């Protein structure tokens, strides 16, 4: 990772990291049902720091996914995640989106419909990327591609190790 030239953005804006979720008495109570909420989705995704590439791609302190951009409706079985690439031309946007989608598919009950897209107005080719991410067939096809799956898995591995 030497040589500053390869970093797409060497001095990015940083944001305070949200602290650990506080445990409440309800969490320990066997009889209380905890609904799946925004924060829980955020926690599933956080710590998700792919270092497998030789550039630091995204990082939660760099605010790729903010808590406010996660919308969950436990009753209606829907999850929506909006992510913001650090710079408008980020070449990895599709990959980031795909990784988020795969992570959620593996981590949420089947009843949920998962929608992942780029925050409006933050990426040059946002429509194209959103369309790819929304298309079930294309996502499935992408995951058939072992090279692509390998890259996605590497993102998720570093998540497991650092998270």
């Amino acid at each position, binding site marked *: *990772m*030497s*040589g*500053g030239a390869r*970093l797409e953005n*060497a*001095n*990015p*804006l*940083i*944001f*305070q990291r949200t602290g650990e979720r506080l445990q409440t008495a309800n*969490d*320990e109570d*066997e009889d209380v*049902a*905890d609904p*799946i909420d925004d924060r*829980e989705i955020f*926690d*599933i995704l956080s710590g998700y720091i792919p*270092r497998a590439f030789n550039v*630091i791609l995204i990082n939660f302190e760099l605010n790729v996914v903010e808590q406010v951009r996660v919308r969950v409706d436990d009753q209606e079985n829907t999850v929506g995640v909006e992510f913001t690439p650090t710079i408008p031309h980020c070449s990895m946007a599709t990959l980031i989106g795909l990784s988020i989608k795969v*992570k959620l598919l*593996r*981590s*949420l*009950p*089947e*009843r949920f419909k998962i929608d992942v897209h780029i925050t409006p107005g933050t990426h040059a080719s946002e429509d194209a990327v959103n369309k790819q991410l929304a298309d079930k067939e294309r996502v499935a096809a992408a995951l058939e591609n*072992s*090279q692509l*799956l*390998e*890259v*996605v*898995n*590497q993102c*998720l*591995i570093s*998540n*497991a190790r650092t998270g």
Partner: protein
Amino acid sequence: MAAGSALLVGLVEEFVSGQQDSKAADTATGLKAGQFTILQLVEALGLHLASSQPQTRARGVQLLSNVLQQCHGDLTEREVDVLLAFYENRLKDHYVITPHVLKGMKALTKCSVLPPGSAVSILKSLFQDVHVQSLMLVERSCVYNILTQLMESRESELKGLGADFVFGFVQSVDGERDPRNLLLAFQIARKIIHGGYDLGKFTEELFEVTSCYFPIDFSPPPNDPHGITQEELILALRAVLTGTPRFAEFLLPLIIEKLDSDVQSAKVDSLQTLTACASVYEHKELAEFLPGLWASLRREVFQTASERVESAGLAALSALTACISRSVLNSDSEDYLNVFLDLVLKDCQHHLCEPDLKLVWPSAKLLQATSTASYRASHRVAAAIMPSLIEQYNSRTQCAQRRTLLEVLQGFVQPVKSSEEDESVLLDFRQSLCSIVFSALSENSAGLQITSLRVLTALSQQTVLLLESDVELAVDHLTKLILEEEDAKVSLAVVECAGALACLHPLAFISKMVPRLKGEIFSESMAQGDSATLSQEHSQQAVRQRCLTALAAVSSRPSVVQESTPVLLQVLTSSHTGTGSFSLEEVISVCHNLQRIAEHAQDTEETGRVFHDIIIPRLLGLALQAAMRGSSDHPSPLVEESVLSAMVPVISTTCARLQSQLAGQTASRAVSLFLDGDMSFLPENAFPSQIQLLKKQAGDSWRQSQMVCLLMGCVCSLPRSVEVPQMDRLLLELEELSCTCDHPFSYTSAAKCYAGLVNKRPAGEALDSLIDGTLKRISTELDCASSSVRTQAFTLLLWVAKALLLRYHPLSTALTDKLFSLLSDSELGSIAADGFSLLMSDSQDVLNRGCNADVRIMYRQRFFTENSAKLVQGFNSAAPEKKSGYLKALSHIVNYLPRQVQLTELPALLPLLLEALSCPDQAVQLSTLSCLQPVLMDPPSALITQLEALVGRTLTLTTSPAMKVRIASLRCIHALSRFPEHEIMPFRARVLRALAVPLDDLKRMVRSEAVVARNEWFLLGSPGGR
């Protein structure tokens, strides 16, 4: 003599022609015994040494060398001289002879009578006639050993050789590859550098021949036969490279180059080497490379992804700055330190003005590293950046930015290395720093408050920075925060800060904080009328709670203890008399806080007196009053079991920790109170004269008998050097109480007290007969199925067993065997099984090291190894419905064993543990899972053969009704994903399917475990996965 020479000829013949290696030793023995001389040996060898066959000559030299290795101490100077001349000459001979020649020379260099000048001639012929790197490993090592030996014994002669010696060494080392020899070579090079040998024009060559190994990357072979580590090599090489400033011009460019490397360990090694040489170098060596070094260091800290590299980089910068700070200024030269700091400031300072951007942090760390290096540096850096940081803080309005700035400031307030005379570099900014801290304390942002509390703590550590008026202001702020701030994290930080400040400025706290807190604790509750809402009452309780915690935190100096503890005692008194409206939790919290004070206060005579003469008598007195009051009027909270249990640690911590002499006095007072009803030391003792606390009485005597727990706190925690009076009588009465009383808390406390005393009694006949008697009594009660006190007897048995087990007493086996036999008891079986958990765990209030109990190390392992077979046997022979007791006991015992022991014992126990997983008892399931989980992290092969059963049973438990069991089983499944891939792949689909269910679990904590586990299993066998 003739016989000797005949013998010698025989030996030589057998060695050289007969190829019998053992004859060399015989010859050496003969020589030592004086049967023949070395001259005779050479004469006898003559023919062979002059043979035309190189093999024969080699054999001859070998015999001579082997003998010399044994006998080099017995030679005369003349003999050595001749032998050396011979050996030097032989170096020119055939190559098969060389190894033996070197061995002989090595032996000769060890002679104490080495003739003058011979060292030089040895080396000359070595360097001239031998090409070291074409020799085998052992011979090369031989050469290095000769060099080392000669450098030790003939240093001055070698120095006379001048640079030729260095040149010779360089030539022999050039190309060495074996780590063992490298270690030797590095040591020689280090001696050359440190010993003041003339490097002449070969400085660069010596550097080249060693630095070519830098940075070292070495991983020892798997079974590590030589015990050489990468660390050893790195340190040996570093000692060479950083040994002399004359290497600077070569080393520094090399370091700059290696810092560009992609390998992290190379970077770290380079940075550490830089740190090491900065302590040897002066400015003139560094000057030329400073810009380059700074550029590399800055890059490493700005862009690194690794903390190791970052901290090594900061350490190197600090060392560099310290090195430049040491340089002496000439009148005509510029100030080098200033030049360097200008460089650093130019690159870092402006980043501090952008508190939103990432580089603010590395910049701050770099500047902090330079300013910790020396007083001058800290002065310069502080003068450059403090005004702008302060100004920015005051002009920015966003909390996040202010917090960042304050955190940066905090780094600079941290201790600056300065001698006593130097005034603090921050003195000029004292005023502004204080006002920033105080303004931040009154902000509304938790993060900002917490940071400012840390800065305040740091400021207070430098005495000149806080004036008395500032301290008072700080105490006011802290008090206000304690009373008003509801955020838990801020409260914690406030309490910490108050504790730190109170250590240094007790007076301000005594005069300002303690009275305010006291007032608040006793302020009449507004919640008296019915207009008050529940939430108001809640918040008032929370305020009181914070006040109590703060009181405990500031009480470390005796003077504060004297002021704060009366407040706490007053709470107890007024809750007893019913004048204050204190809840049960508050009373318990008071006790906890008293204990905290006893734990952290300085152990001085004054503190000791407060606790032993005031607090303990007061606690005992109040408890006694409460017990005597009976159930007539409104009950005092001090008869509650939870309150008494909270008082016990106050007493036991005091007796264990504070002033053992006073503790002895307290113990004897307590004993006479409980045995004889002597109340003379209790305050306000208006009690009926006849009380017998340990005697069973009619009616609700439990209020009095349960006070035995306070006696336990007192006598069971004394240091072992302190004697307890009337021991025998005391033990007798305790046994009686524990076997006859029917109030559970009373008889358990009595049993614990008895056990605590037994644990500390000196071994001997008295103790043995005491235990025998007790065991008989217990057995009688237990064997009588109709006895009404079987539970009592069992409790006593359990505690005494623990007391003896801890100290390895031989009689403990009798007691634990009794416990094992109870596992199949229909009435006591279940509690007996749970008893094993108590036996293995650390008890909170008695029989632990804090109570000065006699606890041997590894008593758990010992117990396990002695008893596991009994347990397995018992399980196998038990009736089916009684098996679960054994499983429970087993899982309790295994659970407390260290992991290493678990791993070795697991194969034998695995069938039982798997059995335990399908046992319906949830407690058994839970404790088995939690004992399996760490073992699964590093699976032994025994587990792999049982994989089918393990996976199946664990998956079943993921749908258990108990949340904790679900969580524990998911953790085990997670751990299973680390097993060898080919073993677990067959289960992948099944596990993924089964884990979809807990993803939708009712409880979030279960879901999050399921998410982690399922994602790991997904990665298994997938491209890019594992």
